[in-house]
């Protein structure tokens, strides 16, 4: 007891000071965690609408939060003045010509406020104005390539990225098939007697590689759209060709004299144990499979690229008809109406519309 009392002051001192130290330490750790002591650099911007931005909204760069919105205010021109801050550890990213971009997910996954650092060397002065990507200033900067806008990391972008190589391959295939079909048409029209079979075989080889090439590669959304447009054009051509072929094959009056001609194209076509025929058929089947893949992917795309989808559907129909014609041709080309009536499936374009969300 005497001992305890003698050292009471010291014991109590240690007891209290230790606890105080622990408390201060945890508050400091927490404070560091919540950025109490870090300096923030403030900038201003202007948005067309406050939708998707609120005080506290994080500003992201490549998936890292580098700052946040501090304050928003509706100004006299009914635009939204925004004050935001960039954390000091990321201040170096805030280069001149940087842009802000609000990316809203079309499928309801919320929005992200992205920061695109400018390509300049100079670092933005504190309080500087940072344009948004869809403002005239922003578009000008993008056009001049003064700012680095990377691929957006959202679902749609990923989907488009996956489709891109598919379409590219399909495109190639379509070009080849198109050439082949042109040859066939010309042959049917009696304009050509070239090595038709080999050409078609080439086409078949190309098509075989399509499936293997699907996946992996990511491309630029814009490129995709333009490619898709190219593709749509090609597909239209293909479709037209196929229609021509089909019509030519269907036409009994045109067929009969040509069939009677021993050097006629159809005979050639059916020569060599149907090799050429099988080849074309195989190619067409490949295309169909590829198209199916595309269809599966585009289910989430519908409103985005209706033209592509519609064209793809038309192509599918055309290819199916071509198959039917070839089938009929093989069975009995002499027979009028030897081509079977196929029961139409729900067109792709329509089904996409149904799945609207």
């Amino acid at each position, binding site marked *: 007891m005497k001992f305890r009392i003698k050292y009471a002051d010291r014991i109590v001192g240690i007891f*209290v000071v230790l606890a105080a130290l622990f*408390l201060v330490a945890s508050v400091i750790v927490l404070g560091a*965690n919540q950025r109490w002591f870090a300096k923030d650099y403030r900038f201003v911007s202007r948005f067309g609408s406050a939708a998707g931005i609120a005080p506290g909204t994080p500003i992201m760069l490549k998936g890292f939060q580098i700052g946040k919105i501090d304050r928003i205010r509706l100004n006299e021109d009914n635009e939204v003045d925004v004050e935001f801050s960039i954390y000091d550890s990321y201040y170096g990213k805030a280069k001149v010509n940087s842009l802000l971009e609000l990316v809203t997910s079309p499928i309801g996954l919320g929005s992200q406020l992205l920061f695109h650092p400018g390509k300049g060397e100079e670092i933005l002065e504190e309080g500087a104005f940072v344009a948004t990507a869809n403002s005239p200033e922003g578009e000008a900067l993008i056009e001049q390539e003064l700012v680095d806008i990377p691929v957006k990391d959202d679902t749609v972008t990923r989907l488009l990225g996956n489709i891109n190589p598919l379409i590219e391959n399909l495109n190639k295939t379509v070009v080849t098939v198109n050439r082949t079909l042109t040859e066939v048409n010309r042959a049917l029209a009696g304009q050509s007697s070239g090595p038709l079979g080999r050409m078609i075989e080439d086409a078949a080889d190309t098509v075989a590689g399509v499936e293997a090439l699907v996946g992996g590669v990511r491309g630029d959304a814009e490129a995709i759209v333009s490619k898709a447009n190219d593709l749509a054009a090609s597909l239209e051509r293909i479709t037209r060709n196929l229609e021509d072929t089909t019509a030519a094959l269907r036409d009994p009056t045109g067929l009969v004299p040509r069939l009677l001609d021993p050097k006629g194209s159809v005979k050639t076509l059916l020569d060599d144990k149907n090799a050429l025929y099988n080849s074309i058929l195989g190619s067409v089947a490949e295309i169909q499979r590829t198209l199916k893949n595309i269809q599966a992917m585009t289910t989430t795309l519908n409103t985005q690229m209706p033209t592509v989808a519609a064209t793809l559907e038309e192509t599918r129909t055309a290819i199916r008809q071509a198959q039917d014609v070839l089938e009929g041709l093989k069975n009995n080309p002499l027979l009028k109406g030897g081509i079977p009536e196929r029961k139409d499936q729900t067109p792709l374009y329509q089904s996409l519309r149904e799945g609207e969300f």
Partner: protein
Amino acid sequence: MLRRIGESVRRRAGEILYGLGFFYSLLKESVLFFRRRQVGYRVLVMQILFTGYEALRISAVLAMAIGVAINLIGASLLAEFGQGKLMYTLLIIVITRELGPLLTAFIVTARSGTAIATELGGMVVNHEIEAYVAVGVNPLSYLGAPRLIGVVVSMLVLSIYFNLFGLLGSFAIMQVLKPVALAEYLRNLVAVLTVRDLMSGLLKSLIFGLIIASVSIHRGFAVERASTEIPVAGIRAVGASFILIILADAAVTAAQYLG
């Protein structure tokens, strides 16, 4: 009958008013305590030694047991829902915010609340308080203030240690169940711990400390002359402290979740 009710209501109201006045002067004296060059410093040190330091062991054991229990529950139950990470939130809520201050308050009440009430009661009966008054010492500032400050400081410090030991106990049992590195453990804790949690726990400790000290001091001084009143004062101090602590806890928690 009606007169009796009226009488008791009047007396009750008088008691409550007196209690509030008492609390006010006690608080005032406690604030002034640091300004006055009085001899009460020693009493303060001894109060912290007794209320805080000597209660550390039981508090630590309790805290570690709670920490272990939460971890066991968390490990078995939360894992079933695939919410293993929630364990840290649970630890913070239970140890830092809710149970820590409450259990510490119960320990302090049981140990020091009774001690203060009976000690002061004994002093009243032995006329020691009158002797202080005769000498010119204000018993509230000389006896009350250091006890109040001592209990409040001890509550705050003990609840900090409760956190420390609770989280330590949880960490220890984790080493047995599924080992996690200390850094990882702390990182997870800090991720869910907010300053609000910390302040909430400390605020509760502060309020509980004020309640325990002022109730016990009040009950101790309320003894009139008989030594038989002393244990009664102790019992009343504990009872009243418990009730007020639980009410205050409910109030603070409600204010936090609603406000």
